[in-house]
C-alpha cells in the first residue's frame, strides 16, 4: 500500500508546536505478541475458551464499524499486522511529522478488560502492560503506557497499579467507560485510591462491554447510534464519579475523558448543578456543586472534534468547559483520527491551540 508520509513544510519548522497526545492506540500484530507474558495456564485457557465479554459475540463487535478495525486505511503496516502494531510506521506516519512530545497509549482489543472471567482479565491486563513496555515505551521514550486494569475487580486493579505505577514507562490508568456498574460505585474506589497515590490520571476511554445497552433506552440497531451514544456513556461516568462522592474521597484524583468528544460537558454540568440545588439532601456527602468538582478534576480530550455548522458554537462550548481543561487527542490509527494542526476550528487562537495541544497535557500527566 503506497503511503505518503513525507512531513509537510509546516511540520518541518524548527519552532513547531510540541504535541501531547492523550489517545494513541497501540495494537498487537496478533495475540501471539502477548504469549511471552501469559502463563501456560491462561494461554491454554485463552485458546480453549477465548475472550468472553458481556456482548456475547465471540469474534466481531456486535456493531460493525465502517472500516476494518475502525482504522485509517493508510495505517496498515506493509509487513502485515494491525494498524498500531508497527512502532516504525507510527513514528513515520504520525509521531515524527506531528511533533509528538508525549503520547499516552490506550490499548484496545484483546486486553482482557471487561472479560467475564475476572482471573483471566487480571492475567491478560498484566500481560498487556508488560507488552506495552517492551514493544513501545522502552523503544520510544515519547510514549507512555496506559496501565490497563481489570476494572471490574477493584482490588486486583489496584494491585496492578501498585505493581507498575512507579515506573516512568506508565503515564495513566486506562479504563473503559462502559463498566458493569456506574464507575463512581464503591467497588471501583481501590482504582482511584491507587491512581491518586501514584499521581496517575485515570483515563476513561469510550467503549467497553457493560452488559447494558448504551443508554437505558434499550439496544439500538446501528453503529451510528452506538457511536454517537459514546458521549452519553461519558456523561454516565462523570455523573457517577461526582455524585457518588469520588472526588470528595480522593481530592487529588485527575480524570480524563477520552474519545467521547467534549460538547456534552457544559450541559451535563448545568443539569447536575440544578438537580443538586433541589436535592442536596439526598447527597450530603457532597460539599460543593457538581460543576465545581468537574472543573477541578475532569479533563476532556478533543477528539472527535465537535463540528457544528457555526464555529462560534464550538468556541462557546470550549470556553464554558475552560481552555485549561481540554486535551488534544489524535486517536491514531483510527478512522476518525484528528490532526493536531488541522482539527481545530478557526477562531481558536494560537495561544489556546498551544494550551490544548501541549500546556494542559504537561500539567495533567507526569512529566
Amino acid at each position: 500500500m503506497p503511503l505518503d508520509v513525507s512531513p509537510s513544510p509546516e511540520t518541518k519548522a524548527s519552532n513547531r508546536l510540541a504535541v501531547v497526545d492523550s489517545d494513541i492506540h497501540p495494537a498487537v500484530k496478533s495475540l501471539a505478541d502477548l504469549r511471552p507474558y501469559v502463563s501456560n495456564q491462561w494461554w491454554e485457557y485463552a485458546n480453549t475458551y477465548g475472550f468472553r465479554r458481556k456482548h456475547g459475540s465471540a469474534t466481531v463487535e456486535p456493531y460493525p464499524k465502517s472500516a476494518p478495525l475502525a482504522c485509517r486505511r493508510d495505517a496498515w503496516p506493509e509487513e502485515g499486522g494491525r494498524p498500531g502494531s508497527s512502532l516504525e510506521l507510527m513514528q513515520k506516519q504520525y509521531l515524527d511529522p506531528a511533533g509528538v512530545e508525549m503520547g499516552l497509549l490506550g490499548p484496545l482489543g484483546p486486553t482482557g478488560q471487561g472479560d467475564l472471567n475476572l482471573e483471566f482479565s487480571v492475567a491478560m491486563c498484566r500481560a498487556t502492560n508488560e507488552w506495552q513496555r517492551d514493544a513501545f515505551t522502552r523503544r520510544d521514550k515519547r510514549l507512555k503506557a496506559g496501565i490497563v486494569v481489570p476494572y471490574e475487580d477493584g482490588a486486583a486493579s489496584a494491585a496492578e497499579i501498585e505493581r507498575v505505577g512507579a515506573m516512568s514507562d506508565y503515564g495513566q490508568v486506562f479504563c473503559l467507560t462502559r463498566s458493569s456498574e456506574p464507575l463512581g460505585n464503591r467497588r471501583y474506589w481501590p482504582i482511584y485510591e491507587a491512581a491518586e497515590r501514584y499521581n496517575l490520571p485515570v483515563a476513561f476511554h469510550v467503549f467497553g462491554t457493560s452488559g447494558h445497552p448504551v443508554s437505558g433506552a434499550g439496544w439500538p440497531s446501528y453503529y451510528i447510534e452506538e457511536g454517537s451514544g459514546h458521549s452519553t456513556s461519558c456523561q454516565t461516568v462523570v455523573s457517577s464519579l461526582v455524585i457518588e462522592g469520588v472526588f470528595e474521597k480522593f481530592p487529588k484524583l485527575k480524570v480524563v475523558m477520552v474519545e467521547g468528544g467534549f460538547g456534552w460537558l457544559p450541559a451535563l454540568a448545568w443539569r447536575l448543578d440544578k438537580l443538586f440545588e433541589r436535592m442536596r439532601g439526598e447527597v450530603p456527602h457532597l460539599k460543593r456543586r457538581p460543576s465545581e468538582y468537574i472543573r477541578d478534576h475532569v479533563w476532556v480530550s478533543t477528539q472527535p472534534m465537535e463540528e457544528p455548522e457555526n464555529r462560534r458554537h464550538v468556541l462557546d462550548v470550549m470556553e464554558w468547559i475552560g481552555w485549561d481543561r481540554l486535551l488534544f487527542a489524535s486517536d491514531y490509527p483510527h478512522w476518525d483520527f484528528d490532526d493536531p494542526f488541522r482539527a481545530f476550528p478557526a477562531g481558536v487562537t494560537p495561544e489556546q491551540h498551544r494550551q490544548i495541544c501541549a500546556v494542559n497535557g504537561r500539567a495533567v500527566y507526569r512529566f
Partner: protein
Amino acid sequence: MDIGRRSFLSGGATRLGKRPRIMKHCTGSGRTAIIEGGRVVSASSRDATAGENATSDHAAGSFKGAIDCDVHPRVPDILALKRYMNDHWRETVEVRGIEGFESIAYPNNAPLTTRPDAMTGKVRADDDVGRMAKALLDPQQFSLAICNCLYAVQMIRDEHLASAFARAVNDWVRHEWLDRDPRLRASIVVPIQNIELAVDEVNRCAEDKRFVQVLLLALGEQPLGKSMFWPIYRAAEKHGLTIGIHAGSSYHHAVTGSGWPSYYLEDYAAQSLGFHAQVGSLVAEGVFVKFPKLKAVLIESGVTWLPPYLWRLAKFWRGVRLEVPWIDRPPMEIVRDHIRLTIQPFDAPDNADTVRRVLDQLPSEEMLLFASDFPHWQYDGNAMLPSGIDAALRRKILIDNPKAAYPRLAL
C-alpha cells in the same frame, strides 16, 4: 489562563456557601409562598401581578393565553382507577392485592417531584382538577394545558394487565380531568408492552379530539425508532396525534449504560441520556422518512444537551451513512423539521447571555414549546422561561410553536 475561569461555573445559581434558606409557607388561599431569606419571592406574589397586568404582550412577563405542554395529573390511588375497570380487572386488583403501579421515577415527596406551591399542608394540587386549576391555570391564565399522566403503566410486565391499566388511566383522565375543565387536553397512555394493544388504545382514545398526543417514555425496553413501534406511528399520523416522549423509565433496563446508579439524583440526570438515544433512534431508523407528517416532542428532557449531540450524530452520519442509506439529508434538518422540546427543565445557568448562546445552537426557533411541568419543581417562583428570550421568541414558545406541534389543538 483566566479565560478558563469563565466556564460553566460562572453565571450559575447561588454559591453553595451563600445559598439562602428556602422555606415553604402555606397561604390561606391554598397557594404557597416561597420565602428566601425573609423576602417573599413566591409564585403567589408574582402571579398576582401577572394576572392584573395580563396583556397580549408576552414580553411583559405574563403567561396569559400560553399553552402549557406538560402538566401532570396524579392518580391518587388504585380506587380512582378501579372505577374505570371491568369486573374482571377489578376482581384481579382485589384478589391479587394490587396496590397500584408507581415507579421510582418521581418519588412522591422528592423536592423535584412536587414544587412547594403545589402543596397545601398535605393536600396536593396535582390529584384534583379543581386544585390544579386554582394553583396553575387560573392565576397564570393559560389557554390550554396538556395532561401527561405518568402512572407507571409501562413498568408492568404483563401486557394484558398493562392494557387494562392504560385504559383505566385514559378513562380516568378523560372523565376526571378533561370533562371538568375545558382548557385541558391529554396524552394517550399506551401499553407499549404489546404494539397491537397499544394501537388499539390509540384508536380507541383518538375518537375524543381532546387527546392530542401518544405518550411514550424516554427509557423503554427498545429504542423508539425501531420498526416494531411503527404501527403506533402510523395510527398517530392518521389521527393527527403527536408523539410525546417523556422522561421516565419502564425500568426494564438499568437507567444508565453502566447499570443502576445509587441516587435518585443520578437516575433523573440519566433521563436526558435516554433522550439522546431516542433522537438517534428516530433519525437512524428512518421514522420520519416513513411518516413525513409525524412530529415527536421531547418532554422534560433538559433541552441544552441536544445541539452537541446533533453535532456528533451529524459527524457520525457523514462517516457511516452507508449503514443507513435511507437517511438522505443531514440529521440536523430531520430534527429541525420533526423534533420539538418542552422548555422545562432548561438546563442552563440563569444568565441571559449564556441562554442566548445555547438557544442559538438549536436548529430553529420553532422547536421549543412552553411547559410548566407542574407540579415538578423545575424553577423557582414564576420563572417559567429562562432569561434571555426576547418578545418575539417568547410568543412563539408560548403559543405558536405548541399550536404547530399539536395539530389537534386547533380542533
